[in-house]
């Protein structure tokens, strides 16, 4: 995780555009100023960052599904369950499925597992708009390349 840049996905491990699913890996850093405050002597990954991790994995799925034509923005969360604590150094398996591709919005079902144990899950709604062009698109392409987002359909990593 590049937690200081709010880029929480390290690597896309699987993208299936037929099933409309994505799997990704995200390793919680061992040190961060976040853990100095949350909490002193008992560092815990904040729940909102777990939610954001699920949103970012979902977002990459939507971007891949729309071939960088559409950009999702987090709009609503439902049925969020934070089931257990996550601590520095843990490797998280983030997964999402596109539950609905609406007109101007999308809904995903996402979850995170650590050591195959369910950590959290949520139903996430995004507003989906035309992809901002120029520098924004270039930056997103750069991040997509860094995390290994397959650009071809039905690629398994």
């Amino acid at each position, binding site marked *: 995780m590049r937690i200081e840049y709010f880029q929480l996905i390290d690597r896309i491990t699987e993208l299936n555009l037929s099933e409309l699913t994505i799997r990704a890996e995200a390793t919680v850093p061992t040190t961060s100023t976040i853990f100095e405050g949350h909490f002193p002597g008992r560092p815990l990954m904040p729940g909102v960052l777990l939610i954001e991790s699920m949103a970012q994995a979902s977002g990459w799925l939507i971007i891949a599904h729309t071939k960088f034509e559409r950009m999702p923005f987090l709009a609503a969360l439902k049925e969020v369950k934070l089931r257990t604590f996550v601590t520095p150094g843990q490797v998280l398996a983030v997964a999402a499925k596109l539950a609905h*591709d609406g007109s101007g919005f999308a809904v995903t079902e996402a979850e995170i597992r650590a050591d195959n144990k369910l950590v959290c899950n949520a139903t996430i709604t995004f507003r989906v708009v035309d992809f901002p062009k120029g520098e924004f698109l270039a930056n997103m392409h750069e991040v997509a390349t860094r995390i290994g987002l397959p650009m071809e359909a039905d690629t398994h990593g």
Partner: protein
Amino acid sequence: MSSTFDTVANIIAETCDIPRDTIKLESHAIDDLGIDSLDFLDIAFAIDKAFGIKLPLEQWTQEVNDGKASTEQYFVLQNLSARIDDLVAAKGK
């Protein structure tokens, strides 16, 4: 159409916690029922699922913004229900 309206009204009542008996055929989803755009996404999601369609919200919004249509054409529930019936009929062709 009547059953379409009933389904839509039930979705709105459940999604937005609006008393079902206040939701009428002539109700405007935005002006009368106070549904905002974010809540309408939940409604659209439920309608899409219930009828197996994809409400063309972006197209409707664009038409309203361009002055080519009024919000009443799409968001008065009688008209919304008719649009849904059209979309369902088109799907079956």
